[in-house]
């Protein structure tokens, strides 16, 4: 067992993901560098990874969001940018967690549309979505009949 000495202690890392017809990750990166003020910014294929003190990162993220508020999405990340335990360059395949983000990128256009629509419509007038808890599950007697049919 060896000692573990963490790096970037006290820092915060956030993903800034862009799914837009008007803004590219390169545009975001240029704006990010302009206002970075010491924070670390890494450009990726889907947007940026921003690392630094919490206040600095929040300020950068807030500014970047203004570029296209309905098409820029932000989430926290545990590891700092380029960490060898997570970076694709070291692992030789997709970064763990990328597939989840890749799936959500297929859904994000619908969410962006929702955000845009709700600027024109009042959310109180929008009907509720399908409730997963209303989905009828198989009742016990039917299940018993199926089991009996299989066993006989």
């Amino acid at each position, binding site marked *: 067992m060896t000692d573990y000495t963490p790096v970037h202690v006290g820092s915060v890392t956030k*993903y800034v993901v862009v799914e837009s017809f008007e803004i590219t990750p390169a545009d975001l990166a240029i704006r990010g560098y302009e206002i970075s003020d010491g924070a670390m910014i890494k450009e990726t294929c889907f947007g940026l990874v921003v690392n630094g003190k919490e206040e600095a990162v929040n300020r950068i993220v807030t500014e970047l969001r203004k570029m296209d508020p309905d098409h820029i999405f932000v989430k926290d990340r545990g590891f700092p940018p380029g960490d060898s335990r997570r970076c694709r360059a070291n692992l030789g395949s997709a970064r763990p967690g990328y597939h989840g983000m890749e799936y*959500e990128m297929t859904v994000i256009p619908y969410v*962006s549309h929702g955000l845009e629509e709700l600027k024109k419509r009042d959310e109180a007038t929008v009907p509720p979505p399908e409730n997963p808890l209303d989905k009828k599950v198989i009742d016990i007697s039917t299940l018993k009949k199926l089991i009996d049919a299989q066993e006989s």
Partner: protein
Amino acid sequence: MAKVFIYPATSLILSDLVARHGHTPLSSAVAVRERIQTAGLESPPLQITPEEPKKGLKWAAVEVPSGVRGRMALYGPMIEECEAAIIINDADLAFGCMGCARTNELIKFLVRQKNIPKLDLYYPKNEEDGVKFVAAIKRFLGELGGKK
């Protein structure tokens, strides 16, 4: 500002929408960050040490596999801390080995046991679903008292 547990705990969409409406999303990244920023013994990649399955005993019995208990050491405190929860029910991306799968079941069970406001959803499948999805989350978070 309420602390909102999100499931899948890595969801970009939920994390963003919760933060966008002025609340704090409780996601796995925060729990992972705590561990990788704490000095101790080298235990790559997530710095999950043998201590974690012991902490997980608070939420899962001793005969439950250590993989579940270790994961619960990350998610358990967040479930205890949360004041509301949003759960996406058809999240195929939250699949995984038995450790992940059983932990996910336990997470959903513990969240449903808790007497807090909860919102159950499916991922939107078209634009109209997207509007309903965002509106439902906005209404839910608005009722918690965030910014409009």
